[in-house]
């Protein structure tokens, strides 16, 4: 199909050159119009930006382009490289180029905050979130700080976008696990927990039994909370998070279903640990009270 597309493109190019050579610029307006023609014009598989870019994945060959020429096309090729070719390095390079060409810092894109005059043809165009999410995800383990920066840019673009804060939390967890001192580790975990709270705030459960049986949701958020609390030896909080995980899984199960019985086992184990700690602390408290008296 690519070959057919290229052949067609070649034929069209040759024909255009021939016509242009003979016509000799007889109609400068039409030449100008041609130059201003939108990329992909006439291709039903090349969605026009008006005003937003198409924030999805298109089967790359349907775009009919040989080399990307703008931020959106670089993003599409990056997606193709990442998903179809498993070429993560190539994808990172394309995503980086895409972000360079769609950067509020250099004026090549804007964070849309209002719908005013000229909205249909926003100039500069809106900043894209997909490329930042994908680049951030690929950098998550190698450069969590950069990931967090990219994910935070996504929240600048769309503060209500779901699971971005969860990704930020995952990046902080990577930072915590790579931290070489306790203070940095604790700070990273705290940041992760803060991000998870932000995520939960975006999708509260509906407290209406006529509408939904759910009394918790975001099971993956609660699972990660529990892991962080457990690693931070905050066992009562870990138990609460695991209970929330179980409540969220009640009507939705889990892609890793073994985590459901594991959560129950963990709760029992953590309760024992809390009980043991309480048992140790109780005599100490009694002695403290006695000494005060």
């Amino acid at each position: 199909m690519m070959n057919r597309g290229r052949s067609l493109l070649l034929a069209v190019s040759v024909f255009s050159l021939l016509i242009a050579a003979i016509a000799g610029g007889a109609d400068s307006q039409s030449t100008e119009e041609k130059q201003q023609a939108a990329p992909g014009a006439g291709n039903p598989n090349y969605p026009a930006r008006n005003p937003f870019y198409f924030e999805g994945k298109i089967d790359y060959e349907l775009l009919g382009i040989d080399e990307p020429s703008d931020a959106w096309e670089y993003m599409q090729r990056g997606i193709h490289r990442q998903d179809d070719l498993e070429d993560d390095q190539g994808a990172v390079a394309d995503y980086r180029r895409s972000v360079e060409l769609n950067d509020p810092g250099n004026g090549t894109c804007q964070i849309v905050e209002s719908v005013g005059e000229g909205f249909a043809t926003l100039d500069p165009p809106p900043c894209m979130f997909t490329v930042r999410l994908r680049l951030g995800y690929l950098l998550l383990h190698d450069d969590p700080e950069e990931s967090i920066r990219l994910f935070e840019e996504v929240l600048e673009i769309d503060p209500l976008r779901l699971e971005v804060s969860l990704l930020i939390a995952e990046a902080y967890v990577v930072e915590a696990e790579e931290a070489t001192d306790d203070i940095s580790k604790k700070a990273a975990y705290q940041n992760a927990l803060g991000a998870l709270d932000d995520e939960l705030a975006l999708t509260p459960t509906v407290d209406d039994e006529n509408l939904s049986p759910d009394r918790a949701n975001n099971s993956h958020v609660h699972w990660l909370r529990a892991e962080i609390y457990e690693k931070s030896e905050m066992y009562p909080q870990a138990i609460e998070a695991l209970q929330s995980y179980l409540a969220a899984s009640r009507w939705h199960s889990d892609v890793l279903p073994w985590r459901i019985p594991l959560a129950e086992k963990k709760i029992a184990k953590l309760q024992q640990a809390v009980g043991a700690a309480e048992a140790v602390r109780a005599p100490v408290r009694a002695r403290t009270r006695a000494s005060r008296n």
Partner: protein
Amino acid sequence: MSGNASSIGSVAIAVLFIATAATAALAQTPTGNPERFTIKPQPYQRAEKCLPCHRRQYDELRSAVKAGYRSVSPLFNSLELAGNFVSGGLLRPVYGDSTRTNADGTPLNTNTASSQTFTHLSQVRSGFCISCHNPHLVLMGEDPNRREIPELAGVGTEFRPDEIRPLRDYHLVDVQGRQMLTPEIGGDPPPEAQPSLGAAAITCDVCHNAISQDLDRSPQRDGLANGSLELMPSLSKVGPFRFPAPVKGNFHVSSRDPERIAYIQSSNFCGSCHDVRVPGASLTHAETNLNPGSEDVTFYRLENLNTEWLTGPYASADNPFGKPIRCQDCHMSMFPYGGESTYEVGGKTITSPTPGVFATNFAAEPEGSTEYDYQLQKRPVANHYFTGVDVPIQSTEQMRARLGDDYPPVDEAGVDEHGVPKSLSQRREDLLKAAVRIDLDKTDATARPGESLMVRATAVALTGHRFPSGFSQERTAYLELTVKDDDGFLLYQSGYLVDKPHPETGEVEPDGSLDDEDLEHAQVIVDPGRKTDVYEPGTATNGHRNEVFALGPDNGPEARVFVGEPNGLVLWRNELTRIYLPGESLGRRGPDGEEFTASKPHFEETFSAAFANSVDNYRSLAPLRPTTYRYAVKLPSREELELLGVELKTPLHVHAQVNFLHFPPLFMRFLARTTGEQGPGGKDFHLVDEKLIDDFLVNVKAVAVADRTVELLDE
């Protein structure tokens, strides 16, 4: 000398080339529709008129959803009603005698079917749904005496959601053929009622009265979408034969117009309705009508089936069969019962049913159909089952009450004279099984506890369009995938369903069925709206927004597309999107009880075509393009296994299967509520309810299957 000759020759060739190209360019310049010819008019006939000579075609068509069922379908009727609730009745047709006006004061007296060209969005909205589902009925409505669907008394702020009738209420007549209505709005038909002409929807006389594509009404002047064909009810019926036999008594004449014959045999003919472009003024991904004067008629692509075909491998010879494969070659042929072919796709050997195999038979009854008793020859004939992926979601008794006592059941026993199952549900299942193949060949060969196993599922669609197609934003094909150890311990699941309560439609306890459950990538309940004292168009009180929306544990669609995560549900359902603009409410509340309001543009999946302002039509599977989906399956660590008291036994078993879900249950539940007492009409229109969902939403599982074992390593 030779050089000069060569130059002159080059110039001559160039001039010739330009002249040829210019001629070709002129030939391609749109020049409008051809002149209409005139022939003795004949009002649209019921299919029963054709039955005496075309019994086989009649019987086939009777068990197609295209004819009959579609017009009384609870889903179609409730969807059309829901669209009217939100638009203020604008989807109902106006006619030539209407006194209504557009916003600019110009008369609005043409509809989707009757407009010669479109200058206003309101013309496309008017009769939008029914102009493809029942185009001849809308055209006939120009004659007030033959009008089956009336113009609404009030639209916009004058619209009365409690007084509008479902379209199917109008498709009833008494024994004299006079229209009769259900006593109650949306109620059961009276026992003496019979089906009207409109009840049968697309029957013989619609297609065989087709003249040509209608470029002036086609949004991109390509003859596709929104009913952009010319119909002329006349004695001249067109079929596929260039040398048809003379018809007994000139009951009709058979057209010998080669262009007309070529049109009805082409995919473009089907594409006149099987691309659907939804009009909208505030779309965030709009396309513009290319017709002169139609620049303001912007739209987005809902059904994109014919464009998918046109830009795919089956519209050319660049496919395994070495020739274009048209719609008719799969949906009007013996397919998938006409033998099999084996071919290569992306290095894989595929065996699948052969398209384009037609039964040999008489096109009409051999005795008594022809003038002068001309002896008919057996020829390759098209069937009229039009099998697709839909089956009725109504009981046979309910359909017979509206469509006649002889309406066939969807599970009719036996095969026809060509050996094709009479059962629509069986044909649908067999068609789905011909549509897609999967394998797990690229999956990791080994795995270790505590690490990730990379499962790679490769899927390829064998369809002429993407898979699924048609109303692809609701039709749901997905991959169910499990990883188990050799003892059956479940390590991973995706594309799974969980039995749960649905209190919003009265299922207070899980009912033991999974067919009425949604996939777990998102938890969604769509707002049905509510009755208000004073009606206002729009979504504020008429529903369509997500009143519950959370991403679920199997979130693959969002994670895969936007984040690139190799995890979660592989869902080939296209996505209707609402891009909320700054200041717009999302329709649900936060923990503080305040409505979520977008401060910046916010993209969210919606389940309403009337509410979407953008669409992603690339979630579905492209034809003949093997696509690999990765699943990074995290296996439990040794410590976790110890705590669980489980010892994994090698090998691991990976199982993948493609399932097809008729419609998302959450979409059905929205329709049940918005056309029920909770909705803007404040009354039950008796279209969809939990019982119907439970009884008739039957999914087709395992249309393609793959298995693979993975060695589990100790260390």
